[in-house]
Structures are given as structure tokens and as C-alpha cells.
């Protein structure tokens, strides 16, 4: 699919749970977009926040200027979530009627849900909320694809492949291949490309 070229700043939030490969995914995306000529600002927190907590990367993709590393409330154009509850959490703060969402379907339960003190929203409740809070959303089981490929953490690359196919951001497979040539060893590249392709097929 031919991706559109942003003339104004595009705001993307990548979210998930610590350990899901959020930071790697945001760097990979940003690397491609910098090479494509955009001024990219990524805001993220890591360190203690990754210990089982919610993680979020804010990507500002601008034709010309450095932006605040924190997106204003209601300002997300695209949300990519490695975990559905985190998708919902982000939408309730940064969503607006024009927001598009691409989310992984597999839950990672918070401790409060495991202990039984809190409830995890049902599939129906999640879908209903995504319907109300996005212009369009895609819900895919990226973790299962990662497991089939031998490592659940590959779900982050599955999501990037799927994102490419949606055409929401100006990047494609060729740019992904070029980007991972800089960051990954040859054996890992092949596996990551398979994950990317599998993601694209899910859209």
C-alpha cells in the first residue's frame, strides 16, 4: 500500500507492558522515518518503569521541527498497542475521534487482576470501547504469530509489519529491511522480516 506523506506533525503512541519490546519497536520506526527525511522526536521512559508496568513511547513525526517529547492529551493520530488494556488506557488520555488504533489481542494481566481484586475488561467491552474511541481499529493476535516464529517478543515486529500495511505512516518493507541491517545480525534479520511479513498479512 502506498503510504501517505505527512505535511503536518503525525503523533503516534506505542504502548505495551514492560518487556514486550516497546522501546525497540519505537526506535526501529523512528530510524526509518528519520532516514525518510522527517524530524522525529521520541519521548519515552524506561528504567524502573519497565518492571511489569505500563510503558509508552510518544513519536512525533514532523516535516520540520523538534516537538515536545510528550504528546498533548487528545493528540494521538495513531496508537499502536502491544497489549489491549494498554491500548484502552492510552486512548482514554490521548485519543480523539480521528485516532486510528492497531492493537495486539493478547492480554497481560495486571497483578490486581491476578489477585482477583480487579477485573480485566471482557473482549466485548474492549471492542465496544475501541469502537467508541477510534475512527478505525485493527485487533490482531500478534503474540501467537511470535510464538509460532519461536519467540513471543517478535510480536512487536509483527505489529510494525501490520502498521506498514495500514498505510498510516510513511514507511514500507524496504525501509524496514534497510533499518534492521543497521541494528540486527543477519540471522536475526531473516526472522524479523518473517515477523514483519506475517504482520502485514494480518491487515
Amino acid at each position, binding site marked *: 500500500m502506498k503510504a501517505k506523506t505527512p505535511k503536518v506533525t503525525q503523533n503516534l503512541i506505542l504502548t505495551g507492558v514492560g518487556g514486550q519490546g516497546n522501546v525497540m519497536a519505537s526506535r526501529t520506526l523512528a530510524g526509518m522515518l528519520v532516514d525518510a527525511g522527517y524530524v522525529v522526536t521520541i519521548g519515552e521512559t524506561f528504567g524502573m518503569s519497565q518492571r511489569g508496568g505500563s510503558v509508552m513511547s510518544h513519536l512525533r513525526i514532523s516535516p520540520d521541527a523538534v516537538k515536545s517529547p510528550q504528546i498533548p492529551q487528545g493528540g494521538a493520530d495513531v496508537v499502536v498497542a502491544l497489549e489491549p488494556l494498554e491500548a484502552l488506557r492510552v486512548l482514554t488520555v490521548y485519543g480523539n*475521534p480521528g485516532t486510528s488504533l492497531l492493537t495486539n489481542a493478547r492480554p497481560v494481566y495486571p497483578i490486581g487482576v*491476578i489477585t482477583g481484586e480487579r477485573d480485566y475488561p471482557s473482549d466485548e467491552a474492549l471492542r465496544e*470501547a475501541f469502537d467508541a474511541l477510534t475512527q478505525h481499529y485493527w485487533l490482531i493476535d500478534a503474540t501467537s504469530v511470535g510464538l509460532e516464529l519461536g519467540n513471543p517478543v517478535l510480536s512487536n515486529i509483527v505489529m510494525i509489519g501490520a502498521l506498514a500495511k495500514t498505510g498510516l505512516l510513511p514507511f514500507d518493507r524496504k525501509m524496514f529491511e534497510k533499518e534492521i541491517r543497521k541494528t540486527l545480525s543477519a540471522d536475526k534479520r531473516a526472522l524479523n522480516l518473517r515477523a514483519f511479513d506475517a504482520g502485514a498479512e494480518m491487515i
Partner: protein
Amino acid sequence: MTKLLAPAKSKVLFLGNEAIARGALEAGVAVASAYPGTPSSEILESLSGIAGERNLYVEWSVNEKVAVEVAAAASFSGLRALVAMKQNGVNVASDFLLHLTASGTRGGLVLVSCEDPGALSSVNEGESRYFARMLEMPLLEPADFQEAKDLTKWAFALSETIGNVVMLRSVTRMSHASGNVICGKLPNRKPRANFEYGGPVMDSQTGPMISTPVVAKHLLIRQKLKTVEALFEKSPFNRYAGPARPELLIITSSACFLYATEAVGLLGLQDRVGILKLATTWPLPPRLVTKHLQSANRVLFVEEVMSFLEENVKVLAAGRPEQMRGKTFFGKYDGTLPAAGELNPDIVAGALEKIFKVRRKRLPAAYAAAVQKAGALIPPREQTFCAGCPHRASFWNIANAIALDGRRGFVCGDIGCYSMAALTPANGYHTMPTLHSMGSGTGLAGGFSQLGRFGFDKPILTVCGDSTFYHAVIPALINAQHHRADITFIVLDNAGTAMTGFQPHPGLEVSALGETVPAVEIAAICSAIGAKVAIADPFDLENTGKILTAFLREKGPVKVLILRQACALSPQKKGKKTFEVEVNEDLCLGDACGCNRLCTRIFRCPALTWDRKKKKAVVDRVVCAGCGVCAAICPQKAIIKKQGTA
């Protein structure tokens, strides 16, 4: 080739910390030292990756004070040196720094303090800008990624111009954010180290590096700051954008500049608000600041943590009462901006809404209602020990030993991932009622142990991590042993500085340069001071429990238990499972078991979840790290572990 060494003119996506490292390389830095601490660690980490190639000496020092001393020795010998730390590291280094600013420096010496407004990865919201004022060193604050690189490079030149250490302050949203940077040239210098000290005492280039004669040296510092002021007046890093006579002047620095710019844009106030972005925030350039103050009647200070800019600008204004008549100042003092916590574009926009009595475009009412409805569905996701974390097992052992002992003992906490034992809801079985600075758990434990004469009768335990042990625990431990403190001291040794990314420490046989170095054994140090020492694997619940129980009963000075098990995220363990773990549904009695769901309600591993339909425990194989500890806690032996991949 690593992007840190990208050729001149290339456009690279750098983390703020990488931009700082690149700036130091462009300045020809020869020596870099640091103690790891979020959000500063990537500066030294990235330099350590290219140290061989660029012939640098790079060191993870034992603590921040020693790190500054190591860098200062290089400076005294004419080399350029950088030292990096997180905000409270400056507290640790401040005693040496007080004397360093008095002795002066030679080769450019830059201290980078990366701070954490909002304490995203800290247990304090420390502010080190006041140290720049108190210790009398110039302060620079970059406001974007290009500036992070360029200001760092310039800081070395500034340091050499005035013969003193220069402080560069970053924040989490700068250090851990990334953006485009255009690289400059990497110099091809081969610096030689030479320390001259035979000259007159007041000769900064040939004399001894000492802080005496104190008053004369102090006057010299004040003169240096006057020179700095004059240089700052002309600095191209201070910029103003907005109308010539704005209705409101914003004075800001650092990431707050980006928030302020965004907020002004959100409200469409570009023609009414001017932004003075200062990169040189101590000492303030008085003429520049006064000139801009005269352009507007209303002034808003946008800054995080404390009112540093606000106070210093007000001091300047107080000196010119006739020019400042009729001015209104907004900021933290009058409550326009919150007194604590980090800022963001929304908070700054909120302040502008109040000042201008305007309202930002709101979301449609139906959407806002949907947000509210969805919000009610979202359970919080608290931080917790990772699946396979040795600390979960250690605290399980500790809590059980305390319960068995029955005298309501408690643990004095310390700084590391294990600090989470002081948080809810991780405290299902934790007891850590004190948590302060690195090493203070042991100091406090020693203090509690002396209170028996006043009727204090609880057993006292304390914990620290392996890196923390070297950083600040040793003096407190010696103090405890020397004063016969009856404490159980537990080292949670997970084989690296795990919380900040597995930087080596003196207990390991590897240095920041990747060289093999002698490991300084924690057990040997504890034995040498006369403490009783035991070593155990926290995953071995039975043995660890036995030792702890015996230690709590035993009267006498310091008893040390070193609990050794590598972090679940460590390079040697990550992605490998020692055990494949699953729940045998036939054996798990679920809610009917008398255990009251020990596994999921009390042990609280994120990989051990509860199937609400079957009402039985279930292992999430995607999250499970395969430590196998849960198999030992199930009274029904329903959790089965089989040999795994590692």
C-alpha cells in the same frame, strides 16, 4: 560502525544521552566516569562501547564522588573529562565538588546531571541546579537533542576558559527522549597527560590543586563567574521567539521549552506570547534577562521541580525596582504552575488558559463521555518484580522468617529494583517500612539496633543490592559491626547493576572497557570486618529460610546473608528458561484448597495467573521466565516444573 561515531554532517537519531556523549567526543574527551543511575546511564554506556576505538579511558566508578575525582585527575593533567550521574548523585559528589570549584580545573571538565522530575525512575525529586549556585559553577541546560550535543561540546571550552568545572543538566524527557542530530567533526587528537604542581599556589596552571588559601580562592571563583556572565550574555544558545512586546513573556529552559512552545501553539497564542529560552541558567546573563523583562508586563516561569529560574530572575529584578514597576510574575510561587511533579504541554496550556482567560478546543461531549465510560473499565498496572525475579523469592524468604520469628521484625530498605518491596501492591508479603538513599538501610538498621536500652525489642533486618553495597553501604556496615549492632544484613546479589542495565561493579571481573579486572568479593569484605557470613540461593527456599530463621534468633553483631541469583533480565538468563512450569489442573484444588490462593494472591508473580472460569491457577507461558520457585510454594504440589532450555 556505531552511530555514535557517524561521520560529520550525518543526520542521526540520538537519545538525548547519546547526543551528550557525541558532544563530548566532538570536544575530544579523553576520560569519562560515572555511577549508573536512571536517567543518566546511557552516556557512559555509549562511550564505553567505543572506548577502544577512540582510545578513551572509561570507568563505572564505585560512586559519584569517586567518579568526579577520577575525572578531575584527568583534568588536572590537562585532559578533557566528563562525569555523569543522576540528580541525587550530585549530593554524593558535592563534598568533593565544593573543594574542586575552589582548586579549579585545567583540561575541560564537564559534570552531567540527569534529573528525574516527577520521579519516573527515582525515589526522590532532587534538584541539582541549586548545587550549581551553591558550589559556584556555571550551569547549562539543553532544550533539544542538537543542543544537547552542541552545548556539551561548548561546555568543555567554557570549562577551560574559566578553569573550572561546568555543570550540564538534563532531565528524563531529554536524556531518554530521542531526536534528530546533525553530527559535527570528531577531532583527531592524541592528548598527553601531564600534571604540573611546582608553581606558586595561586597559579592555576602550574601550582598545586588545592582549595587554600580559602578566601583568595573563593574570590577567584567569584571572578570566574563574572567572566561566565559576560560570555553568557552573548551565548547563541539563549534564544527568544515571539513578538517584540509580548503580552506575556515565558522564561524557560530544558524540556520545558518544548512544552511551552507546544502549549502556546495549542492555544494559538503565538502573536501574544514570547518565549525566552535560556540555556545558560547559572549565573544568569543579567543584561539579556533584564532587556526581555522590560519588554513585557507579565512574566511566566515554566520550569520543573523547584523555582530556580523564578527566584534568580526575581533577584535580578529586585535590583532594578524602577524598571520593574507594574510587573506580574506567574510561576510556582503564585501557584500558576504546580509546586511539584513534572510538567507537560497540557499543564503549561492550563496555566496559559488561566492567565489569558481562554479555553483550548475540547473534545466532543459524546467522545468525552465514552472516555469516562472506558476509564471505569481500566484496572491499574502497578510496577512489580518481573517474572523470575530473584527479589520476589528473597522477600518471600524474608517475610516467612519474620513471621516464624513472631516478634514483628522489619526490613530497612535500600535503593534498587528491590525498593519495590516498599510499594503496594507488591507488599503482599513484604515488610520494608523505611526507604531513603543508597546505603541508608544499613545505617538506619544500625541505629534501630541501639534502641534496646529504650525498650525497642524487634529484630532488625536490612537489604542492599550488590552494586549498592560498594557504593555506600560499606561505611554503614563497618559502623554497625564496630558498635555491635545486632542486625541481619542481606545482600540481594543479582550479579550486576540490574536496574540501570547491567553495568559492571567492583564485584565483577569485567570493567567498562571490557577488560578482565579483579573482583572485590562482598563475602570477603564482610568477613574481614568480623561479621558472620553465609551465602545462599534465594530460589532454594528451604535452605535460605533455615539460615534466616537462625540469624534472627542469634544474638550478636552483624550477621550477613548473601543471596546470590542473577537477575531474570540479565544477558546470561534472558530468553532462557531453567524450567518449563505448568499447573496440573487435577492437583490444583483452586478456591477449595485451604491455601487461600497463596500462589496468585500472595506470591504475585505476573506469570502465575488465575483462570476465572476453571477457578484454578494457570501459568502464562509468554510471561513465565522459568525460575520454578512457585513449584515450591504450592502446598498441593500442583505446580510442576520440568527441565527447560537453559
